[in-house]
């Protein structure tokens, strides 16, 4: 959390600034995930460089993000299953 104590601001401004920073931090986290995913999907989907993406590359890039989300929730589900199983035995 950002320290705004030294800024000599009234509590309303402090709150406003705090809220602004939280929003920007959330935005920065999304931005950083987009950087990671672009890098990942670029390596997976893009072949040789030309003046435009091929249809295959285009659809691979389009699917790449959604399958990443699916992978993430799939694995979370698997871990939960494992944990439930371990708890039952």
């Amino acid at each position, binding site marked *: 959390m950002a320290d705004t104590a030294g800024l000599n601001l009234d509590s309303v*401004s402090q709150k406003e600034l705090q809220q602004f*920073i939280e929003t920007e931090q959330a935005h920065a986290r999304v931005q950083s995930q987009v*950087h990671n995913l*672009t890098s990942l999907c670029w390596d997976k989907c893009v072949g040789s460089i030309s003046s435009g993406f091929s249809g295959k590359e285009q659809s691979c890039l389009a699917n790449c993000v959604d399958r990443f989300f699916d992978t993430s929730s799939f694995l979370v589900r698997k871990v939960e299953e494992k944990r439930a199983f371990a708890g039952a035995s």
Partner: protein
Amino acid sequence: MTSLFGASRTPTGTPSNPAETAARVENLKNSIRNELALQNAQELMSKVTEKCYAKCVPKPGSDLSSSEQKCLAQCMDRYLEAFDMINRTYVARLKKERVDSQPSDSL
């Protein structure tokens, strides 16, 4: 680069009027926005350089050949295009997940 928190500090005890406070908050917000935009641009440039160097300069010679330069220029356009695409898909998926998970939040 101006210091984020150092520059606009007033001596403690100075009564600050609302207009001055609002201006100070606005200044801070702008520095934060600029700082984040700069970071984002730097990250993007460093990724483009890394990826396009890998694709376009497989065997570094004594200089960048014209075909390597052409490849690099095209590669940068493609990378930015991919970033844009991934950005849109990612944000759309985030929104969808948020909507889908809302009813089950009450559990």
